[in-house]
């Protein structure tokens, strides 16, 4: 399978990228790692007239700590996130989400920014980024704006990114040493897309009770789904006496839960609470033990 022909542009700076985006508008498509876009082009599900390849743009793949934030260049590969000692120490939830994307070869090329901007509802990052309260830095010719994860993911393959904007950076908070976390992906085979995924963060009070929790599901709606009932069931409870089964039972999926050949909506409803329970158990088991 061969993509339809296109004009190829390989700029080396973000300024050139923005100029090309301005010139071609909706006709132009950015290619980061190409691990989602190129398969779609081969299947002729996408046939952009202009490919603006970010392959030769440098300087947007660093992972660094600034204050209590980890700032990750949009062109950092999944492999770079998975292997980053900084991320594994300070925000291991995201490192684990990165390390369970597809397979080794795809992780070598696919990027955080590309995957986030593609906004496939079954992809790994979106629930993790919403749970973490990540911020997205979007650059245009007129300046930069910062968008919260919950506002960035807007629908099926839809984000807050405008046609003239470039996602340059994703910022996530460094986790506290005592925070509990887990990222869990349920799939038939390891490299497959998630049937259900769950990102969990649990914070403790000094007195051993739960100060707050973020529980966000992926693959069960067009955008990441916050399990508010589960979060409420955890808040204020004594951590050593948490009833995970009961808390997980508060997982409620929406009326538009997707059905596909791999899992119908009823199956997703059945397994989502199981995934939540397992993720909560793992997250709480990590609490107070530092990171992984």
């Amino acid at each position, binding site marked *: *399978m061969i993509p339809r022909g296109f004009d190829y542009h390989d700029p080396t700076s973000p300024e050139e990228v923005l100029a090309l985006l301005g010139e071609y508008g909706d006709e132009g498509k950015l290619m980061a790692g190409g691990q989602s876009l*190129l*398969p779609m082009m081969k299947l002729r599900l996408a046939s952009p007239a202009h490919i603006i390849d970010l392959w030769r743009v440098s300087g947007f793949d660093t992972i660094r700590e600034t204050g209590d934030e980890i700032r990750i260049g949009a062109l950092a590969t999944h492999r770079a996130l998975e292997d980053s000692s900084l991320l594994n120490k300070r925000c291991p939830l995201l490192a684990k989400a990165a390390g369970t994307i597809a397979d080794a070869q*795809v992780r070598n090329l696919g990027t955080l920014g590309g995957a986030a901007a593609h906004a496939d509802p079954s992809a790994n990052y979106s629930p993790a980024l919403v749970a973490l309260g990540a911020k997205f830095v979007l650059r245009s010719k007129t300046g930069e704006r910062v968008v919260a994860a919950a506002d960035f993911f807007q629908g099926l393959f839809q984000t807050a990114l405008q046609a003239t904007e470039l996602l340059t950076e994703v910022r996530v908070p460094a986790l506290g040493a005592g925070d509990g976390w887990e990222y869990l992906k349920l799939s038939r085979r390891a490299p497959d897309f998630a049937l259900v995924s769950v990102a969990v963060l649990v914070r403790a009070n000094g007195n051993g009770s739960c100060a707050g929790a973020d529980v966000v599901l992926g693959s069960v709606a067009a955008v990441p789904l916050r399990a508010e009932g589960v979060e409420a069931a955890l808040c204020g409870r004594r951590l050593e006496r948490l009833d995970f089964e009961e808390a997980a039972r508060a997982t409620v999926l929406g009326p538009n839960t997707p059905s596909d050949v791999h899992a119908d909506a009823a199956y997703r409803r059945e397994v989502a609470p199981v995934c939540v329970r397992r993720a909560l158990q793992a997250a709480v088991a990590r609490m107070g033990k530092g990171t992984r």
Partner: protein
Amino acid sequence: MNRTISVKVNGKKYVEENVEPRMLLVHFLRDRLRLTGAHVGCDTTACGACTVLLDGRAVKSCTVLAVRANGHEVTTIEGLAKNGKLHPIQEGFQHEHGLQCGYCTPGVIMSATELLQRNPMPTEDEIRAGIDGNLCRCTGYQNIVKSIRWAADKMASAHGRTAPGPGDEK
């Protein structure tokens, strides 16, 4: 507009003119350079039969534009043997019967090459995770895992290391 690209493949520099931007790296290697070791299997980024190393990283060459390789280095299965002597991973596949039809083999070996560079003494689980982007439809994975284990042991003993035994966890 078609491009002229310069790529170092298995240590040899190639300058190829008139490369269409939509040409995939696997077709460039097979049809332009006549290096047919990288196979086209599923053609959908799943099976890994087309795996090559791009700047030392295992990638699926059916999902990379050839123009991206301009100015970069590619290693294919043809580049592993040195001076007529097989690479230890190739030897491992021979010793442990790591292939039957051989279609997936070049891709698996290239993935294993990167795996052992990153992690010279992997556990069995790490080997299995390291090749989860490669599908085999006949040998089964048992002998493939044994072959990679054999190679890791041989490369480790050459470097004076002790490899973990089967089932050992780190």
